[in-house]
């Protein structure tokens, strides 16, 4: 399988990465090189094989449904580019 220019633009949008028109052909070439490389997986017979979900044979641990952390709002917003009090600031999203 390979991707065309329209698909490259669609993937970039899904990934939320701005891509300019003149970057598209280059990216298309690189993505297609990677897709050509992974194409060899189609040779493998995976009939009846379970997909891996955990590399170590262990039960997923579950935490108790208890509050064990918190009251650190200052820490949470400490590295934010724009804040007001304990809120993150973003451009207006609701008209």
């Amino acid at each position, binding site marked *: *399988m390979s*991707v065309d220019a329209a*698909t*490259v633009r669609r*993937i*970039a*949008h*899904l*990934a*939320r*990465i*701005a*891509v300019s028109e003149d970057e598209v052909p280059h*990216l298309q070439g*690189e*993505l297609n*090189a*990677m*897709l050509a*490389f*992974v*194409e*060899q*997986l*189609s040779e*493998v017979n*995976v009939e009846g*094989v*379970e*997909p*891996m*979900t*955990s*590399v*170590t044979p*262990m039960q*997923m*641990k579950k*935490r108790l449904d208890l509050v064990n952390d918190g009251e*650190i709002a200052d*820490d*949470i917003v*400490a*590295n*934010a*580019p*724009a804040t007001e009090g304990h809120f*993150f600031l*973003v*451009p*207006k*999203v609701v008209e």
Partner: protein
Amino acid sequence: MTDLTSLTLAEARKGLAAKTFTSLELTDAHLSAIEAARVLNAFVMETPDQARSMAREADAEIAKGDAGPLAGIPLGIKDLFATKGVRTTACSKILGNFVPTYESTITSQLWRDGAVMLGKLNNDEFAMGSANETSCFGPVANPWRRDGSNATLVPGGSSGGSASAVAALLCMGATATDTGGSIRQPAAFTATVGIKPTYGRCSRWGIVAFASSLDQAGPIARSVRDSAMLLRSMAGHDPKDTTSVDIPVPDYEAAIGQSVKGKRIGIPREYRLDGMPAEIEKLWSEGAAWLKAAGAELVEVSLPHTKYALPAYYIVAPAEASSNLARYDGVRYGLREQGKNIHELYENTRAEGFGAEVRRRVMIGTYVLSAGYYDAYYLRAQKVRTLIKKDFEDCFAGGVDAILTPATPSAAFGIGEKGGADPVEMYLNDIFTVTVNMAGLPGIAVPAGKDAQGLPLGLQLIGRPFDEETLFSLGEVIEQAAGRFTPARWW
């Protein structure tokens, strides 16, 4: 006092205990070495004040006689580990001036045991690379050069700063991480020892995530014993990482010097690649002969799905990366590029903040997870992964204790030499190491010799899950036979 930097960690521990020198002297010697080696670009942040204050504390503990196992030992920390109050960037512009308000579990365990932080080490951006060329702080130089050449070589990646700093005697050991070979390949390129432990052995909490089902931290050090000492402090169960395993951490150092008599060592025929350089082939046979001379038994084994590990990795790892890196949105931390609306803000921030390799992997990951392609790519890759793991399980069930392979398909190469036109050329560096991540197994790279141009080459040992001890025992046999290698100083 500069000769203090040439001690191994084990030797330094003895000297500190005997009060031959203090941690402050040892730390100062390393801080001077770092200053004199800035041309290597191994450190992206030096923390001399913090280092000296930690060294003074360690000296006080040593004087009191209740020092931890790493008391006073100066270490470098890969910039992927969150360090409280010290800028942590994963060497990406998108994290900008991120200063964590918390400490990663692994580093907190190192400080608990008395270690001293010298600073933060360069790496490939988000650990995506095999040459340390994708860092937003620029490439790292390998302290090794070809005989009679001034050309700068890469130290490997993604833990290139860790490997370069340890090889150049700038720190006694370093933390590193390995998703497809990022500890073992740079260790092999710099004649250092690097171990990627079993998945789940070390906590991933507080380490910037790349591909969560493959990422595992480990040390890079100058000897097998040093790496065993560091892993003991780094490993252990952490309730904050649900994939970390709750089993006791052995005294890994006790495995050094244990007899390897009767150990069965698998030599996998699929690792004998067409066009493999003769010197790699020779190194591999020599390594096998050393283990045999120490009493181990060699058996040829087959891992039939080996050739599919790298392509399956380049689906699984980017898929997980695209999901992990969704958090970099320009809102909660790091870089922000303005836009007319929130969508443009996201897109502009991520276009500006991510480097080319990261953008490429996030996009591939997004594609293979997108509607209509998930089954063909991601699901199939995870099935292939099951088969890769089964190859190893069959091999171990047949009585094999460990598997010996080359660590890399070549020695270090020049900056800008690989992957310019085709990204896959760079990816092939990890051909011998990536299988181990796919199967969650432990793997150690040990220096084993040099190529015709005088560059170091390493061998890899792959072990059963949670049997790092056998790797340390076998690794030390190789180290004893091959000797240790130090680069000639040119910086």
